[in-house]
């Protein structure tokens, strides 16, 4: 993978809003953002109510995703172009999620909604009327998703990259500072994890930094080992997974979607605090 095959610019997006075979999908943390205005023709996917199992803490299963994407009018051979607010956190999460279920051609708009809005590009409120499809998902690709036992086993042996803010890493905060301070039972980080905040991979306008800057940023990630990225609920670490895998082309990188809300509530596992 490379920047060219996984990222598109806001300019490219604007020029391809009505290109057949290209489906724009907005995924936000603030799931009402879409309703206030979105890219013309874009469909909305709610990261919580549509991508998560309503009962268990897990994703919707393969059949559930097939039903969802069919209803959204998305075909297997469509190019899915994702974007969203909050520096593309949830759009990157959806990118990883669609890759997990085997969608071939997925792209992210560099800078997402923020760049689009700061560019002054048009937003509309009309919702598209797409014809239902018959979407076929694959089994989950276990090579890009880490579960808790693997994470515990990775302590001291694999690269663990904690992408939260320094204050969350050190245990000063439990959650990002725009959210109430609640979540896991304990604050801190997984022992031997390095703290590379996701935000260092992005410019102020939400676009990704240059390849040279990104390579320097992750110089401490040992390419001879496998890598697991985590954050609080797995969305910011999807952003970092995207950088490591899709932009820098690193191999064997997994996203731990259970992240700190799971790890920080486990009984008996080691926790480190401080920088």
């Amino acid at each position, binding site marked *: 993978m490379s920047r060219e095959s996984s990222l598109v610019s806001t300019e490219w997006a604007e020029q391809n809003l009505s290109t057949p075979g290209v489906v724009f999908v907005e995924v936000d943390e*603030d799931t009402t953002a879409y309703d206030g205005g979105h890219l013309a023709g874009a469909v909305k996917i709610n990261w919580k109510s549509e991508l998560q199992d309503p009962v268990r803490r897990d994703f919707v299963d393969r059949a559930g995703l097939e039903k969802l994407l069919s209803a959204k009018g998305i075909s297997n051979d469509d190019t899915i172009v994702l974007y969203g607010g909050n520096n593309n956190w949830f759009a990157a999460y959806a990118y990883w999620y669609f890759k997990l279920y085997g969608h071939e051609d997925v792209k992210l708009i560099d800078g997402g909604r*923020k760049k689009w809005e700061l560019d002054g590009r048009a937003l509309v409120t009309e919702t598209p009327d797409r014809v239902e499809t018959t979407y076929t998902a694959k089994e989950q690709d276990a090579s890009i998703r880490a579960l808790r036992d693997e994470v515990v086993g990775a302590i001291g042996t694999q690269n663990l990259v904690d992408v939260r*803010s320094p204050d969350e890493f050190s245990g*000063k905060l439990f959650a990002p*500072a725009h*959210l*109430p301070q609640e979540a896991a039972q304990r604050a801190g980080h997984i022992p031997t994890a390095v703290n590379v905040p996701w935000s260092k991979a992005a410019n102020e306008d939400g676009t990704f930094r240059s390849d040279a800057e990104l390579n320097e940023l992750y110089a401490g990630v040992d390419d001879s080992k496998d890598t697991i990225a985590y954050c609080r609920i797995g969305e910011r670490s999807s952003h970092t997974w995207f950088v490591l895998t899709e932009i820098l082309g690193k191999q064997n990188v997994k996203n731990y979607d259970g992240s700190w809300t799971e790890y920080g509530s486990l009984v008996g596992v080691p926790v480190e605090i401080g920088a």
Partner: protein
Amino acid sequence: MTDCGAPEQTIDLPPGTNITDQAIVQGKVLNGPDPVAGAFVRLLDGTGEFTAEVVSSLAGDFRFYAAPGTWTVRALSRVGNGQASVQASLGVSPVNIAVG
């Protein structure tokens, strides 16, 4: 804002918010006297490191749940960018950001 008296409560906090254990940084993004809606407001820590980002409301309001200490709030908007420093303590610490 005046120099004395209780800090102005610019926005109502969500019901049930416990301000005795939260350091809340909040205020408005302003272009002259006018509130700026849809600005991207970033909370930077004492070293300038990004911590969080929100979008200002229709009334230009923003809010962060921070920790006691020195923070910078920086706004990006179509009318311009701006930033301000704030010393947060437990409770509500108000700060406005001028842009344009």
